[in-house]
């Protein structure tokens, strides 16, 4: 980090839908903070509108969605649509949770930067974000 010219990467970690299993979201949030990023955790049960609103307000570089309930396809689609509608295409989106492997290509196709399945290391998440987010 070069101080004057670059700023810390800003990440919004969100729990969309009705699910309350937040172990993964919190572990990832903490690991990203330890890696020097600015992390905003939305808390539970956020609608896609609230998540995109938080990303806008927090000037986020990237949004991480934690979804274990099987609702990843409609939720990711909605979040990405909203980002496009609000001309926030520069904000990347990644997803982690219980996601069947056959859904990964479709998630990638709709514009999800990366999908983390159970067993992923938090260091992989750190590396992915560092390469997906261009310094500004």
């Amino acid at each position: 980090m070069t101080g004057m010219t670059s700023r810390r990467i800003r990440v919004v970690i969100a729990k969309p839908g009705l699910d309350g299993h937040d172990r993964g979201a919190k572990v990832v949030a903490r690991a990203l903070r330890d890696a020097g990023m600015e992390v905003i955790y939305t808390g539970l049960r956020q609608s896609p509108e609230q998540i995109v609103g938080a990303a806008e307000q927090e000037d986020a570089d990237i949004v991480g969605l934690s979804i274990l309930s099987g609702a990843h396809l409609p939720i990711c689609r909605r979040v990405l649509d909203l980002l496009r509608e609000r001309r926030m295409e520069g904000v990347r989106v990644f997803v982690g949770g219980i996601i069947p492997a056959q859904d990964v290509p479709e998630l990638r196709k709709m514009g999800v930067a990366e999908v983390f399945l159970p067993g992923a290391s938090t260091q992989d998440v750190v590396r992915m974000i560092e390469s997906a987010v261009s310094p500004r």
Partner: protein
Amino acid sequence: MKKAPEKALDPEPTVPRAFTTVSGRTIEGLYRPEGVGDLDYDRDLGDPGQYPFTRGIHESMYRGKVWTMRQFAGFGSATQTNERFKYLLEHGVQGLSVAFDLPTLMGRDPDHPLALGEVGKCGVAITSLADMETLFQGIPMDQVSTSMTINSPAAMILAFYIIVGEKTGVPESRLAGTLQADILKEFIAQKEFIYPPRPSMRIVVDMIRYCTERMPNWNSISISGYHIREAGSTAAQELAFTLRDGIEYVQWCVDAGMRVDDFAPRLSFFFNSHSDFFEEIAKFRAARRLWARTMKERFGATNPRAWMCRFHAQTAGVSLTAQQPYNNVVRTALQALAAVLGGAQSLHTNSLDEALALPTEEAATIALRTQQVIAYESGVVNTPDPLAGSYFLEKLTNDLEAEALEYFRRIDAMGGMVAAIERGFPQREIQDAAFRFQRAVERREKIIVGVNAHVMEEKRFPTLYIGENVGVEQAARVAALKATRDSGRVRRSLDELKRVARGNENLMNPILEAARAYATLGEMCDALREVWGEYEEPALF
């Protein structure tokens, strides 16, 4: 499949491993008699069936009857789950266990915006009495016991079940089963709460009172450590927070004027059976001793049934891996064996596809067969508590009990569990433990086969797929229901529910009436949201 060269992908772990349990407990090189100090057989262990029940709650344990093999199931519509229930019953399951979808667990109808993509996904969608009628169609409710994993809207689901029983000629006094209804662990771990803690506790107390008076074969609550452990707690924290939750419920019921000897015999528990074999067995034994002593000494219970910690166990979903999923059969078998050696009354074994999706029929069958192999082939059922007297196990049992007592002391000093939850104490303890474990895995201080050691290329694995159509169909069913029911009766019943919520009569009566009128779960929960508001926890990490 072409086997990947294992060495290239996966050098052997190089970090020296400490001898610790999955919870980070240090294990000594040797255990000797002096380690268990002045262990007194009658005082600290007792024969099986004798106070303090360390060795089991029944004299003959599994010689008399093996544990109930109770597999948790539910997905899609009530019709689909009804078919799975019938399949399981045909294949030797002895008790049903209903998994509800998230809209049901959160008291939201399928047409609510937050239900997007969630209907029927991780359980069955039950929106009104009509769905419960479908769910139990053709299942003799006087012959099976049913466990229902539901918490915030537990009272409404219980009402649906009671009414379906009534309509099929089984009175509530003969219904057997368990309602989870443990709201404290929702605030602590699983986070499926709706209302703030204090009104949530009132619903629980009202339900316990109702069940105590009218449903002698019903476990009014299942005080759960499972979710606390899945959220990342240690074994000692699971034990401590679960039993301290139990103390909190007992205290609230006593404060509401109930007699401990009347209601406590129907309190039941639900623990995780995790990977560290001996620590888990010790945890179950410590739970029984601690609960017996607590009920007798702290609450003055004299009914021996009020001293007994009866529990269901489920193997640890969180320990199962998406990588090399067949290895999960082995993990589950070991965890199930620990639950059996720990004296569980009923058991769910997870399916090998747990980390991928809801189980396929084939995966669910292997999980059930795992229990049957333990019960009928391994010989471990032949005598109760076969590991008693092991220096190692007795020391672990003592240590776990002492650690739990220390947590009791701290939580008591905060003013009880509700107060501790309000200041975020158990939540923070668990969160820290979860983070420590993740770090240990990433540093390879803890090895998970197939994840951070012995990695191979993965091949495609078939999983159960639940489409998006369930939500649309369920919303259509609810719309049709609303068009045909007596809307005046629904409105009046919901007004009555709100009136009772503002006062202090038992909530079960207006809930039963609203359920009979075919009010939806969302409508009933909204009525209470209007009176009590919704709980929002601080988003800390």
